[in-house]
């Protein structure tokens, strides 16, 4: 502001001086800091709470138990088909192979058998890694890599975590990553296009053409 505000009649000049002087500068700073902290809290703490809705999986699943029971690691259930396509989340037909009858007292297993297997219905899993329809991902092209590179150590988890669904996009929070700031520590923390591009750039020298990952 300029010092030439002197023809403003209803503001006494001393008050004016004070307003820009020692007394109120503190208030100015205070208000600035309040605004700053308030918005930082909003952005970092409140915003993610508002952005994501919490959803529970239809039944809980213990990867660890299954991992112990199978011989072929992740690929025992998440396998490649003969044509090189990836089976992804197992269908009920796969579950039936072992769970035609409940093998334990576990309420989740009982629910699986009674509600889904008995009725021939698929379990409506909420898939943490689900990408938009326009995304093409070839598991076969990445088969040399460890599953954990992108999916993390989910294979040894004992429970399925709460599925946090982005209210705006409808996709899981795991795509953007748990850190709302988008910072990642591990390769599996985020699954955005930039993360694909980053690795492609590093490994192949280019981010690749559009069609490599889009359909």
């Amino acid at each position, binding site marked *: *502001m*300029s010092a*030439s*505000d002197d023809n*403003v009649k209803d503001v006494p000049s001393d008050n004016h001086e004070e307003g820009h002087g020692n007394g109120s500068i503190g208030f100015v700073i205070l208000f600035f800091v309040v605004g700053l902290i308030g918005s930082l809290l909003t952005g970092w703490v409140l915003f993610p709470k508002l952005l994501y809705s919490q959803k529970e999986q239809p039944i809980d699943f213990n990867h660890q138990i299954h991992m112990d029971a199978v011989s072929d690691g992740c690929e025992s259930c998440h396998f490649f088909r003969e044509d090189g396509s990836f089976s992804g989340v197992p269908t009920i037909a796969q579950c039936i192979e072992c769970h035609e009858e409940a093998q334990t007292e576990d309420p989740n297993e009982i629910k699986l058998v009674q509600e889904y297997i008995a009725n021939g219905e698929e379990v409506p899993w909420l898939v943490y890694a689900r990408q938009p329809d326009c995304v093409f991902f070839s598991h076969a092209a990445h088969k040399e890599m460890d599953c954990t590179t992108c999916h993390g150590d989910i294979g040894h988890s004992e429970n399925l975590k709460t599925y946090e669904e982005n209210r705006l996009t409808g996709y899981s929070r795991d795509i953007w990553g748990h850190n709302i700031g988008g910072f990642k520590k591990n390769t599996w923390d985020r699954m955005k296009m930039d993360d694909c591009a980053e690795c492609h750039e590093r490994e192949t020298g280019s981010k690749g053409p559009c069609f490599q990952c889009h359909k």
Partner: protein
Amino acid sequence: MDSALIPKGVKRCSFPQFSIGILIVGAVLLWGVYAMLLCWFKGLNQTGMNDSYGFALWIWADLAVIALGGGAFFTGLLRYIIGKDELKNIINFAVVIGFICYSSALLILGIDVGQPIRSWFIFWHVNVHSMLAEVAFCLSIYFSVLAIEFVPLILEQKQIDEIPFFHNLAHNMHEIMAVFAATGAFLSCFHQGSLGGVAGVLFGRPFAFREHLLVWPWTFFLFTWSAAAYGPCFTILLTKIMEGITGKKLVKDNVIDLLAKISGWMIASYMVAKLVDTWYWATVTAPSKGLTFMDFYSDGSGLYTIWIIIAELFIGGIVPAIILTNKSWRANKALLLIAIILAAVGVCLNRWVMVLQVMAHPVLPFEGWFAYMPSWQEVATTILPVAYGIILASLAYRYLPVFPQERELNPVED
């Protein structure tokens, strides 16, 4: 009724009279808004465009208003950088026109894209090689510059001006306006040029394609040059219309004469460049693609025949250039008026040709010319900015000291 808002020392029509005028134009505006909403909610099937006519009336309107609005940057350049001081008496109006033209262009672009809610991808996922990206960037930045240039004028409004802060702000902004004018001129060179480049880079379209200089096709330079040349004519034309409507002289003849003279010489020099370009294109570029000059003017419907290039280059170019460069002719009010009208039509025709004829000309040898008829929705949305422009210009004229010489030329008798 609104006398408190009207600038000092000038006379304005009565408020009811003004309101009725605004209401009438407002009705047209609403019609345009309705059409705009139709396009947004129902999609571009509301238009007469098709797969062969992806660019049509709207893109023409965009190019035309930006060329016509070119008066703002060029007058600014002349006033603030070259130092043609007389032009301060018309620069305000030039800025208002520029603002209207550029905001209209942005609005039309917002309707023209198939996915308006994604239109910001042009910035978010920009491809810097695209002429259209260049257009979008320069256009939006220059629009901000125009808005800044418009601000001091608004601040000079009687009531606002009474607030010392705004008064001083306006004053200070005037001081640094040269910086904005320079920025504006710089940006304008690029977006006007890149609008020309939009057509000129199309090497799949021999009608549009032009040889390149550096990374830009000739049309890049021709568009910038023509906008600078023809823009001021449009500023003069609108001033004349304003004078006609208000029944008052608003700008002194020497100001108009200066601007007209500069415009005349600019058009003349542009015409030289354009004719050389046309000649080279017709005799070298086109034949290298297996096409003769007349192939481009063989439209069976009669629209794109040789008359269109005669109209553009001769009637809309050479004729106004001759009139405007001749001192005694441009002093003749009727001839001046004819010249500026022809010039405005000429530049619009050029933009039309560079958009619609490009689309109409068959590229595949076994195709015919493509026909296009705009739908009412397209026409309405194209008229929408005109209505909006009239309203904004009227408001500006009524409440802002747009013409500094008005008071002097039209002393109010008490």
